[in-house]
């Protein structure tokens, strides 16, 4: 038995099914130990893809996703994935091979100080220099990555450490005196939430991914229905509350629905349940909900008061806190408020124009995807215009149904994350919704998807532009386009076919249903649908970056706007 066996044994003990990996000199002992283990290796084509797969697996299942890469460039290729997982609180474990401990700091072949490189983008990290520490470190890594506010943990494993021979398994007792997961519920704090809720006539529940991670969706629904309070969800909170529910106002923020954002502007109380007042939500902080009472539940104490100082807050697990809160609250007099919101819904619905004989719009394709899948698919998006339209038109009803890179906005996330999600939930329909830009950053993983014969649908919405950047150049930089035209794109159908993957081309609105139905019925492996869409549409509603929520632009506009200030 060697150190590498201890690592693999620890993974088995944690019930890990898949390991997303790429071999190299420094992780050879680990790859050797994998043979004959219970773990299934998913051989990726680039380490960034491995982390996004593990992240997608984690988001779709709630269980940690595990990555195994080699030292140097193998390890540094995981940095984007770690940032993505860290920003979105996703439990991912990255195991890196490393050069021999005696060579550390001597510029050995494929040496990178990945421990220090990744410090700002992990929840925690280890450089294992004593082989006896392996079982303890592995146990701590899993414990840390999935408890409290989840996040990625990196374990750097020098080759001499993984090669060390053992007669028996060293002790795995955890030694993390500084790590405390908030336990129990501060009843006094919950009473204060209840007291402030009582007087509200225009409340708004603002629900983020924290509610999904905590498994609080039933409690959120119960609270909304008991209070008769409308609910808005963040981009990552999609699925925490059914968007088809009469009390739902959909997504809020920069590209949220007009009625969600009008609710934000006009509410007298806003109650964050596992959402962190991100700048894409609040716009100009100094003008955000000035007159409204603010309540906040978060498991991470560092989020309370970071951007918004709440009138009352509780640090804890959303589900436990809401369970405590529910018996303390009763129906609020919200009839007038709900009818005002109903009016906004009628007056400012999400809409698009799709002439049947005209150019294809992304919104129409996504709207049809939503209807043809009855809103039941697990949707994994990339980043950009297609992501925002998918968020607007693909309404979710279940937690862990919507995977998207929110905090980091990582292009290249959508497709590999969908591979991870499909592995986590094999019997279910998984659709990767990607743009032509982001897709090309990680589409080498088509090999991975093809080898695994995953029945994944990859919908490439191809407008031959980096559409979101073009939109900003049009709106804020006097229509001067710079570096956004993706001429030189491949034919994505032929590209898929070269991997032995079926591809369908979609060009006309009249064909959308037939092509999507064909793709949805196909089950022999992955399928790529390339939709060639019109090029110039912009995403609305829009709150310009750094502007106040009330400055939202509801309808498409050609008017010149001030360059963003105070925000990117």
């Amino acid at each position, binding site marked *: 038995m060697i150190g590498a066996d201890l690592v693999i044994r620890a993974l088995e003990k944690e019930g890990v099914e898949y390991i997303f990996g790429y071999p190299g000199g420094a992780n050879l002992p680990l790859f050797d130990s994998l043979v004959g283990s219970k773990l299934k290796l998913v051989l990726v084509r680039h380490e960034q893809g491995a982390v996004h797969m593990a992240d997608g697996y984690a988001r779709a299942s709630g269980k940690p996703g595990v990555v195994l890469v080699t030292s140097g460039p193998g390890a540094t290729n995981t940095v984007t994935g770690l940032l993505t997982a860290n920003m979105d609180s996703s439990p991912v474990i990255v195991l890196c091979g490393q050069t021999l401990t005696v060579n550390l700091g001597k510029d050995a072949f494929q040496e990178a100080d990945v*421990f*220090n490189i990744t*410090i*700002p983008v992990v*929840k*925690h*990290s280890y*450089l294992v*220099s004593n082989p006896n520490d392996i079982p303890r470190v592995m146990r701590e890594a899993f414990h*840390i990555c999935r408890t409290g506010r989840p996040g990625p943990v990196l374990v750097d494993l020098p080759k001499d450490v993984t090669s060390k021979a053992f007669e028996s398994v060293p002790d795995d007792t955890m*030694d*993390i*005196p*500084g*790590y405390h997961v908030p336990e129990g519920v501060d009843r006094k704090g919950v009473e204060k939430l209840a007291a402030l809720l009582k007087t509200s006539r225009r409340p708004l529940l603002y629900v983020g991914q924290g509610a999904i991670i905590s498994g609080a969706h039933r409690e959120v629904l119960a609270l909304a229905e008991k209070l008769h309070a409308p609910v808005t969800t963040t981009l990552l909170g999609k699925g925490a509350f059914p968007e088809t529910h009469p009390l739902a106002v959909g997504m809020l923020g920069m590209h949220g629905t007009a009625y969600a954002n009008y609710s934000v502007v006009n509410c007298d109380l806003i109650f964050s349940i596992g959402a962190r007042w991100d700048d894409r939500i609040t716009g100009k902080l100094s003008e955000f909900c000035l007159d409204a009472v603010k309540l906040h539940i978060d498991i*991470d*104490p*560092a989020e309370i*008061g*970071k951007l918004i100082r709440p009138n009352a807050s509780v640090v804890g697990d959303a589900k436990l806190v809401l369970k405590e809160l529910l018996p303390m609250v009763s129906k609020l007099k919200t009839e007038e408020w709900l009818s005002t919101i109903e009016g906004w819904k009628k007056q400012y619905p999400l809409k698009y124009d799709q002439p049947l004989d005209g150019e294809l719009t992304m919104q129409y394709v996504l709207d049809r995807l939503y209807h043809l899948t009855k809103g039941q698919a697990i949707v994994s998006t990339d980043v950009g215009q297609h992501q925002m339209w998918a968020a607007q038109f693909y309404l979710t009803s279940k937690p862990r149904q919507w995977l998207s890179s929110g905090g980091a906005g990582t292009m290249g996330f959508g497709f590999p994350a969908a591979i991870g999600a499909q592995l986590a939930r094999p019997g279910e329909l998984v659709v990767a919704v990607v743009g032509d830009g982001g897709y090309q950053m990680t589409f080498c993983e088509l090999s991975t998807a093809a080898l695994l014969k995953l029945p994944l649908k990859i919908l490439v919405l191809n407008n031959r532009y980096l559409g979101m950047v073009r939109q900003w150049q049009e709106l804020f930089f006097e229509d001067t386009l710079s570096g956004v035209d993706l001429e030189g794109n491949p034919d994505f159908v032929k590209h898929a076919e070269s991997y032995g993957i079926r591809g369908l081309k979609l060009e006309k609105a009249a064909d959308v249903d037939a092509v999507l139905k064909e793709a949805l019925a196909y089950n022999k492996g992955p399928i790529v649908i390339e939709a060639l869409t019109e090029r110039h549409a912009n995403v609305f509603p829009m709150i310009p970056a750094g502007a106040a929520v009330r400055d939202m632009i509801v309808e498409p506009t050609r008017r010149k706007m001030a360059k963003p200030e105070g925000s990117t």
Partner: protein
Amino acid sequence: MAVEAVNNAGAAHTISVLVADKPGVLVRVATVFARRGFNIDSLAVSPAHQKGLSRMTVVTHGKEEGVTQIVKQLDKLIDVVHVYDYAEMDVVSREMAIVKVRTPSDKRSAVMEVANIFRAKSVDIGKGSVVFEITGSSSKLDAFESMMDEFGIIEMMRTGKLILRRGETPT
């Protein structure tokens, strides 16, 4: 330290951080300050009395909200066992310095006189210089430094502030 200070406005804060004695902990702590643009004015680290733990005293300055957020972010670090931003009155605080002062023979007695007033100890005497050791509050050291500057300080080194909470309760 080499961190661009953008939060210069605001009072000095003395933050005591009890950390697990693990590799990288100093980098993690420093990163929290650096990322938010806070300057570390002084930093003292030593083993704590408890096995496996170290104690850091960090002096920084900045606006109250910013420092509060830094304390929370430090607390979030897995290796940080306890962190607190102490008010001056709640702690005993000491700092030590060694200061090399230029002392031409005609100035030597004047230098020694100032040193005596500050109860600084001379620990090395050369032809043209004296090295003093001085312990006390940081402001006493500041005053000593400014007095000795009149004669000419060749070089000096300060430990940075050390604090412990007053009374029986641990820091």
